[in-house]
């Protein structure tokens, strides 16, 4: 029997099945998805690294798995992959931290 957890690595390969219950939207999504990751103004490697960074920001284990493989396949190395993750970390951390300006404003407003 398959191990029962919220995230099962084997489920990643079943991603395409989401189209079973809504084929039209599913097809449109996957067509769009495929188009997005094609070589364009950004290279396939750059897009894979952006996807890897976003995967960490949204903390999706499936995407982290998929875009680690994809980044390696597209020729990225460990240093590039870790730097991409730090970009996500900086933005996530920065987004939290920048709200502290609001905290400071409010605190000043209420203080003597």
């Amino acid at each position, binding site marked *: 029997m398959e191990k029962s957890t919220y995230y099962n690595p084997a489920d990643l390969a079943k991603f395409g099945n989401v189209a079973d219950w809504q084929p039209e939207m599913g097809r449109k999504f996957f067509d769009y998805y495929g188009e997005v990751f094609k070589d364009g103004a950004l*290279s396939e490697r750059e897009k894979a690294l952006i996807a890897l960074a976003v995967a960490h920001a949204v903390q999706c284990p499936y995407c982290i798995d998929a875009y680690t493989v994809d980044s390696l396949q597209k020729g990225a190395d460990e*240093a590039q992959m870790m730097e991409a993750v730090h970009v996500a970390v900086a933005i996530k951390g920065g987004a939290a931290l920048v709200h502290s300006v609001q905290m400071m404003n409010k605190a000043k407003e209420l203080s003597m």
Partner: protein
Amino acid sequence: MKSLHAQHHALADTSYQLTVLSEAEAAGARLPAFAHKLHESGLLPLRPTELAVMQVNVGKMCNQTCRHCHVDAGPDRTEIMTRATMQLCLDALAQTTIPVVDLTGGAPEMNPDFRWFVEQISALGRQTIVRCNLTIIVANPKYHDLPEFFAQHGVRVVSSLPHFSAARTDAQRGEGVFGRSIRALRMLNAVGYGVEGSGLLLDLVYNPSGAFLPGRQVGLEREFKQRLLREHEVVFNSLLAITNLPISRFMEYLLESGNYESYMQKLVAAYNPVAAANVMCRSTLSIGWDGQLYDCDFNQQLALNVAKNAPQHIRFFDATALQDRAIVINQHCYGCTAGAGSSCGGATA
């Protein structure tokens, strides 16, 4: 690092490798037989097309011991082609119009008759490809003039460089290999190799440093060109993206790292019928160091000789009889048909 052969490793026995390959097939219905896939694609039995390349493995000796090597080559391997066997290859070549002779190994340049062989191939008016591991050029002063020698005979140089970063290259090919490869590439560039308009072709081979498939060849080529030029002032012509086949030392790596089954599944899932129609064995004859005949260098390393109805040794070369053979296939063949396909000339689909 020692070869599997020198370690007396179980996988040094090719029949054991074939057992592993067939067990994976039995382990789950998810890994269908390669023959079954070919049948579905209308390609069984797999037949030769026109013979375009004579690939000669002139010996297993090598100055490197790369982790993924499908030949299990290394400094401790002594199997080497004699001049007499080379002569038999030349005799066969002279009977045909095969335009290209592809020299591989090991490090083919370590064969003491290597230069003689190249000269004879040139004299027959055929193109030589040398699968040069780069570091051999700087390994010993006696090899420093190889770039000039190659240029003199219009040899096309095809060299492995698995990554433009030192860490990923060294992880696969050994400590310091990247730096020495760059030195050798500069020496090749200096005599005109890879330089536009020189007519001297220098191609690089990319293969993944791990249990994943190569990305698209064009995209990787662009990345390699930019990085090697910017960081090392190195130029080259084309990048050939090659998939690692699950045999020999790469099989050992897959088994050791627990990646074997998932890698096989990846290969099977990526089966591409267009790549299957273009597999290189259809247009190649592979010759072993001792003169035995094979459908490709991978089959050679698995000791899978050409089908019994064909001549087994280059001494008995017979183009018509070879043309009538069925190519010997096995589960490792999935490595040639995954994604954009893979061959000694890179992607095939």
